[in-house]
């Protein structure tokens, strides 16, 4: 297993790549992609039992990016992890590419479900978690949601089902970057108290700094956690994390960086 400092370097490389991809493809959602990079790194490099060379192993752990608009982040993660060739990333969102701005079904190995319409991923994941039990297997299912996504009623339908069935192999991670497309996620809807909501729905809840890879790795590797409940992780993050002039600025939900901004970003990440 890699050390935490090695994982932090991987996270920086992923951030550099996704800034570059947004610039080249003129595709949006950069802030949302940057906020979840450390979660992806902790999941893929520390927690998930997966083999990029055998991506359809029936007993593999599953990861679903329910916040499908962070597609560039998961594509880069999967490519860096070896699921497919890194040069495919250069085609992201270009005409005819298999890498659309929201992941399509089986677009590349490692994408477990097509997402982009919010509020679907957790239910799909729970269907997988239930299958695991029916088929007497032992894998875990990790689902990454956005905070804005928790507006969707289906998230809470899923939350009630999972706890009713004590699906302790399900992990719901909320990338709590405090923004949704056009405003503060705690103002548009009464999202808070988010931890208490998940607890009230019968989940075992952890709250952590969503950029602390070590802390995330500790939580995500300890599944099931012994509570006999599904696990929710409230990961406090910063939208646009890693690039000073993008951090907590919601314009970067849609803004595309200029060439100069790409260079500045890479310098900040120590990649130039």
């Amino acid at each position, binding site marked *: 297993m890699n050390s935490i400092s090695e994982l932090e370097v991987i996270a920086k490389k992923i951030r550099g790549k996704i800034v570059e991809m947004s610039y080249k493809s003129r595709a949006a959602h950069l802030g949302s992609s940057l906020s979840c990079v450390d979660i992806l790194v902790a999941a893929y490099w520390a927690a998930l039992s997966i083999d990029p060379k055998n991506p359809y192993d*029936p007993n593999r752990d599953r990861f679903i990016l329910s916040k499908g608009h962070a597609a560039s982040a998961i594509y880069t993660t999967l490519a860096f992890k070896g699921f497919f060739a890194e040069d495919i990333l250069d085609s992201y969102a270009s005409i005819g590419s298999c890498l659309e701005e929201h992941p*399509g*079904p089986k677009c590349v190995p490692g994408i*477990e*479900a*097509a997402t*982009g*319409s919010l*509020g*679907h991923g957790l*239910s*799909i*994941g*729970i*269907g*997988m*978690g*239930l*299958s*695991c039990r*029916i*088929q007497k297997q032992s894998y875990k299912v990790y689902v990454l949601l956005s905070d804005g996504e928790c507006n969707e*009623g*289906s998230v809470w*339908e*899923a939350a*009630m*089902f999972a706890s*009713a*069935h004590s699906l302790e192999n399900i992990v719901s991670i909320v990338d709590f970057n405090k923004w949704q497309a056009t405003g503060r996620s705690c103002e548009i809807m009464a999202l808070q108290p988010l931890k208490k909501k998940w607890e009230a729905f019968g989940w075992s809840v952890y709250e952590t700094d969503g950029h602390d890879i070590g802390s995330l790795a500790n939580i995500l590797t300890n599944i099931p956690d012994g509570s006999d409940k599904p696990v929710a992780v409230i990961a406090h993050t910063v939208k646009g994390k890693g690039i000073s002039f993008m951090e907590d600025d919601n314009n970067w939900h849609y803004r595309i960086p200029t060439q100069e901004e790409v260079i500045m970003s890479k310098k900040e990440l120590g990649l130039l």
Partner: protein
Amino acid sequence: MRNAFASEITSLAKKNDRIVILSGDIGNRLFDKFKEYFPDRFFNCGVAEANMTSMAAGMAMCGLLPVTYTITPFNTIRCLEQIKVDVCYHNLPVIIIGVGSGLSYAGLGGTHHSCEDIALLRVLPNIKIICPGDAVEVRLALRSAVKNNSPVYLRLGKKNEPVIHKEEPFFEIGKGITVIKGTQVCFLSTGNVLPIAVKTASLLKEQGISTQVISFHTIKPLDIELLTQIFKTFKVIATLEEHSCIGGIGGAIAEWFSDQPCRKNKLYRFGTSDNFIHRSGNQENARKMVGLTPENIFKKIIMEFN
């Protein structure tokens, strides 16, 4: 139809351990046998159809064959986007069962009527839409559906509908079944109105008009071969359905018909009108209100021969 469904799915599940039933808190006692045999393969998913549908997709991704079951409007248009994105976009073997379709539960009011589900599901790529004409067809359709490796919507009535088929006919998804042979008029009936088609044919026969009745159970994919043959043979053709005339079998066949080079047939479409029903009454009364009766259809068709 729903009893035939429950009995058949239980039989099929004995031979196929991939079958899992997800119920939307409906079917009280209906699945007692299934639950007794397969306690680990039945889940009451509560009144949460969006979650149930996406869960079914997740289960199908893992190799299972989930069957979602609840009252038609709630299992179709309530969770339409889940059907589109999670089931159809991924092209997964999920069987969606709508029970109480059309005006089956007329007395329960407009919330429980379902006269638009075919129209809304028909536009989704990859899905097959089957509306069995009686309990025999329900069993046959289900047997075919579990062998089908892609999304299927099975549109059922309620219980105790007349059984039309005295013995099991040949059944294939996408192939209409000729119930009565005739020469002058052809009824293309889909779903639970098959008895109305049969009755109307007998009224026409009394007037010396020979009527063919086809149980056109599959709306998607359309049986183009049969349609081509029917439109060559018959001048007067009528579609029958307990569904809006907009977008159902009538709409589907009218679309196909408009693409044909030579259009000399008279095509009637019988179904429900573009209105909500606001008055109480059972299925029979509701059918009268919308003109979906043998007498009314007979009156319209006979005019072609006067």
